[in-house]
């Protein structure tokens, strides 16, 4: 049963094998283009590419995580998670979904690495206690997360860091970072790393990135944070349907006031949309049902690095972090003391000047003639 042969069918072929017509294939390509945030005119290119593509092996490593990213993946509807794992990729190691446990599970990982050397994709969710942290902070099968990661990525084609923990360190790395948590790109330097950030990421973005790799065999265009531009190229704020209210200066001040009910901008309630780059505003969540701002809650900014330490979730973006009025009053007091000091010295200088002042006399003036 564990026998393994290199699959020799392309994705296009296997799709037709399960009864997909050419129209169906066309439709699939249209949906894929949409999912990859590509213009619909790209569908033919996708079709051509898919005729060449094969099911790649994917190894999913879970480290310091909450499984939210996996849960999110299961919410993907285009393609669905079952289509993804049965038709498009070979998910050879994934703690939450795989049947095998213990030694058998670890063996599955090693087999996949061996059979697909240099070609498999590694997906990581969760941060990793760095090489300087206590390796005991997070282990699987007795091995530290760090060792497992480095061992697994060594012969990988590319690494996809799914979720903000894997991409940027996320929650474990939030101050004071008790476990020395690090992101994948902090640790993996010699492989292409794609960050699919979000807490969790939008499921369609996870599958969209996979689809892109699957379709074109290369990484999509990435931004400065190694995130695919197609999804993270624009801010929530710029694509938010409430943006016109922001521009008009109409804001909700509470969660069920008139403004909230009328869908006014949530900036005042702390929305991090202006500094957050993600596709929530267009792709939305759970089959387009809604997204946080549509459901009345300000954006937390979860796809951005260090968002946990980026100031209170209910403080507007422009409010500084941790500057207290008390500090300022103290500073003002120090300033008052300093000013008083300077003034006292100056006054003394002035007084002395007055006291020791010699009146000008005619004789003195005459000398100047």
């Amino acid at each position, binding site marked *: 049963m564990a026998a393994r042969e290199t699959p020799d069918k392309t994705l296009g072929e296997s799709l037709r094998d399960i009864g997909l017509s050419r129209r169906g294939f066309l439709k699939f390509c249209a949906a894929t283009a949409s999912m990859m945030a590509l213009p619909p005119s790209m569908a033919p290119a996708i079709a051509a590419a898919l005729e060449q593509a094969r099911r790649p092996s994917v190894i999913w490593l879970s480290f310091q995580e909450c499984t939210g990213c996996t849960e999110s993946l299961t919410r993907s509807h285009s393609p669905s998670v079952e289509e993804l794992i049965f038709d498009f990729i070979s998910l050879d190691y994934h703690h939450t979904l795989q049947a095998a446990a213990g030694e058998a599970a670890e063996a599955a990982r090693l087999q996949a690495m061996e059979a697909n050397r240099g070609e498999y994709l590694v997906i990581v969710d969760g941060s990793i206690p760095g090489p300087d942290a206590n390796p005991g902070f997070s282990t699987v099968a007795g091995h530290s997360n760090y060792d497992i990661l480095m061992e697994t990525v060594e012969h990988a084609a590319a690494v996809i860091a799914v979720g903000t923990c894997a991409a*940027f*360190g996320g929650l474990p790395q939030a101050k004071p970072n008790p476990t020395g948590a690090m*992101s994948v*790109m*902090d640790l993996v330097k010699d492989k292409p790393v794609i960050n699919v950030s979000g807490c969790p990421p939008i499921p369609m973005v996870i599958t969209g990135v996979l689809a892109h790799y699957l379709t074109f065999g290369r990484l999509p265009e990435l*931004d*400065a*944070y190694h995130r695919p531009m197609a999804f993270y190229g624009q*801010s929530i704020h*710029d694509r938010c349907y409430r943006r016109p209210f*922001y*521009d*008009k*200066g109409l*804001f909700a001040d509470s969660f069920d006031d008139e403004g909230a009910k009328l869908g006014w901008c949530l*900036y*005042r309630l702390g929305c991090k949309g*202006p*500094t957050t*780059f993600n596709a929530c505003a267009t792709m939305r969540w759970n089959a387009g049902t809604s997204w946080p701002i549509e459901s009345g809650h300000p954006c937390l900014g979860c796809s*951005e*690095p*260090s*968002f946990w*330490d*980026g*100031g209170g979730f209910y*403080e*507007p*973006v*422009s*409010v*500084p*972090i*941790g*500057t207290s*009025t008390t*500090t*300022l*009053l*103290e*500073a*003002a*007091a*120090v*300033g*008052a003391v*300093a*000013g*008083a000091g*300077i*003034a*006292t010295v*100056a*006054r003394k200088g*002035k007084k002395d000047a007055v006291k020791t002042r010699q009146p000008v006399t005619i004789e003195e003036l005459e000398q100047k003639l």
Partner: protein
Amino acid sequence: MNGSMEFLLWVKGPLFTIAMVIFAIGLLARLLEIFLLGRAPNYAEARAGEWLPGLRTMIARTVADPGTFKRAPFNVVVGWLWHIGFLIALLLFIPHIELFKGVLGLYWPGLPNPIVDLATGVTLVALVATLVHRMTHPVKRRISTTEDYLVWTVVFMVVLTGYLAYHRLVEPYPLALGMHILSAELLLVLLPFTKLTHIFTAFIARWYNGAAFGRKGVQS
């Protein structure tokens, strides 16, 4: 590693606090430096009180007398334009109001962004004009110091980075926003130690002026 976001959080966090602390220390020091010097008693019989004319001058001096307007229209108009534009952007842009609310607990209604945006654009143009004026007008060129150019640069940077960030003309955005906040912090830090203090002391100066003249029966 996470570059611009870390930069943003740093400028929004510790650096902002540092800037505000330097600002508060510097400003208080400056104000006390002034007030503690005091004035000598005046024994001459006053023609009128000091307070009212002083207060009037504080406000009235904002508007140039017609003669000055005629002789230096550029100075007056451009000065007005960028001051007003700057104040609109500073005080009536919603994110700034939220900042004041967050730091001072005071808030007021803002203006729709397109208006603020327009004001900011005008301010930028006017600021460039002031620089050209400073470099070409004989008097201004003669009296300008390094500080004048430094202060101009900082003020211009504040407005420019704000404009760039708002229009997202610099990527990544946290970098753009961070630059804006950083230049604003630079402005805050420089404020008490440069001519920027006039934001506060001009009103004191005007009061003294108005009071001195008012005492003699002239509304200055």
